[in-house]
């Protein structure tokens, strides 16, 4: 099925690319990342224009996000409770909900590329909880821009070697996610009440305060 789709890329190029990212933003099982990587490869070979491929991928993804948001907004609570009947979806939706509550902008931005399986569900939750549309759209377009640039760009850079590009993207995303977790957990850990207390009142054989002297 994937090979068949790939053969259509030079033929229907931009429309196929936009349709793929559109559908994948609706949580349909479409190999959008492979199509984007291959489109980048065709762009490197001169069969597609790189700028047009980027724009097509971005346009499809943004349109898919908007459909998800407005579906959530229009159907609201009724749709959500039906979707939540499935335990797998319920788990994803609950995580999406918790993320939106705490930090909506960051959640929308990161769920476009770093935590992309959450994306479609964040769209629905954002719409049904009437999260502000301009904020949703701004963070969404920025995030999809990163997503499209990452995949189409990697496909271009690796001259269509999809395996190489996806290996590199996988490692790079893992690195970014891991480093983000290190920073977040580090801040939490080293500025927690216990740590602060310890710094003010060091144990006899205990640790030195972290920031002292030059």
């Amino acid at each position, binding site marked *: 099925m994937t090979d068949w789709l790939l053969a259509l890329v030079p033929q229907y190029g931009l429309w196929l690319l936009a349709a793929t990212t559109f559908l994948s933003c609706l949580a349909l099982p479409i190999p959008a990342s492979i199509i984007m990587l291959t489109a980048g*490869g065709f762009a490197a070979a001169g069969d597609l224009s790189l700028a047009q491929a980027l724009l097509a991928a971005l346009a499809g993804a943004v349109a898919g996000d908007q459909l998800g948001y407005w579906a959530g907004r229009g159907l609201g609570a009724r749709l959500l409770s039906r979707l939540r009947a499935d335990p797998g979806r319920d788990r994803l939706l609950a995580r999406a909900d918790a993320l939106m509550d705490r930090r909506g902008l960051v959640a929308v931005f990161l769920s476009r590329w770093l935590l992309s399986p959450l994306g479609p569900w964040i769209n629905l939750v954002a719409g049904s909880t009437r999260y502000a549309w301009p904020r949703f759209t701004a963070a969404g377009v920025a995030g999809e821009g990163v997503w499209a640039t990452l995949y189409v760009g990697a496909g271009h850079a690796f001259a269509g070697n999809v395996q190489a590009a996806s290996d590199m993207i996988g490692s790079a995303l893992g690195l970014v996610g891991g480093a983000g977790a290190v920073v977040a957990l580090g801040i939490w850990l080293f500025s927690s009440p216990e740590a602060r207390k310890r710094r003010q009142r060091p144990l006899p054989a205990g*640790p030195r305060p972290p920031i002292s002297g030059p």
Partner: protein
Amino acid sequence: MTRLLTLWRARPVLTTAFLLACAVTLFFAGRLVVYTAYWATHRELPVEPWMTVGYVARSWGLDPRALDAAAGLPPPEERGRPKPLAEIARDRGVPVAEVIAEVRAAIATLRADP
């Protein structure tokens, strides 16, 4: 080190999570380095039916028109869209494996005698 131990006694779960995140980050950093080294020396892709001549040529660092000529393939049509090898085979009424074999042979010739 002592400091980390004190922290771990105070907040075991959070400290473990922090160390795990460090390990995951190091793992992916290592993976990135390994893949970079590997793919820098393995650029060439096996020829597939969905690829166009341009795609194959790009992957093997060859001139696409030279590849066309060496494989006996038709040059791209004026203002036409690029064709995957599967379609070239269909137009000629031959199995795609035959076209792929011709392209492979052409790559070998071009590689041997640039």
